[in-house]
């Protein structure tokens, strides 16, 4: 089996019940097609960088699972047909993965802050080396 993650965004105004139904549906698609859900973590509501179907916010969910490649088409078909789902992306994490040997993963929602020590220095001057050159 392979390990994948599906990161998807649903409408921002869904009730707890509706979010539970979404979770049940997509976990079900994975499990009923021979896959194993490794983790299912709601990341919550975020402001979008651009409006998506007139929504300024979206509710993000990250689902990791083990499956064969044919399950991806089935999962994505279900997501495409579900009007609650606004966006989704599937990324392969591991080519050779057995969930029973790796256990479950902690359901951690990462910090909403940028990683420290990353700022690109806007002012490059102090690191510039100034050389002079004869013209021509």
């Amino acid at each position, binding site marked *: 089996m392979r390990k994948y993650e599906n*990161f998807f965004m649903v409408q921002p105004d869904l009730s707890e019940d509706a979010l539970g139904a979404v979770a049940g549906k997509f976990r079900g698609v994975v499990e009923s097609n021979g896959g194993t859900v490794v983790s299912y973590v709601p990341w919550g509501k975020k402001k*979008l*960088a651009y409006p998506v179907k007139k929504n300024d916010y979206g509710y993000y969910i990250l689902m990791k699972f083990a499956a064969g490649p044919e399950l991806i088409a089935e999962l994505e078909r279900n997501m495409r047909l579900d009007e609650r789902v606004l966006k989704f*992306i599937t990324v392969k994490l591991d080519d050779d993965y057995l969930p029973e040997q790796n256990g479950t993963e902690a359901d951690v929602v990462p910090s909403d802050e940028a990683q420290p*020590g*990353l700022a*690109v220095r806007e002012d490059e001057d102090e*690191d510039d080396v100034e050389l002079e*050159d*004869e013209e021509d």
Partner: protein
Amino acid sequence: MAFATTRPRRKKRFFRRRRVCRFCADSNLKIDYKDGKTLRYFLTERGKIIPRRISDNCAKHQRQMTLAIKRARQMALLPYTITQSI
């Protein structure tokens, strides 16, 4: 500029000191398409990807960076463009 007028036949050329790729230097830093806040450092004000010669990313990490930014755009975590309202 006094400098320019005293030596008019010379022109200045700037060579930026080569800095090291920050992702090579710090293995704790991760490039993740889901981490919009971090990726945003590598976009210009208008939302374009900052080129390697400015960001000092190495080729490998710049490749990972551009892929992550494109995925983040797809998921509306980052903008494709930022248009200035006039």
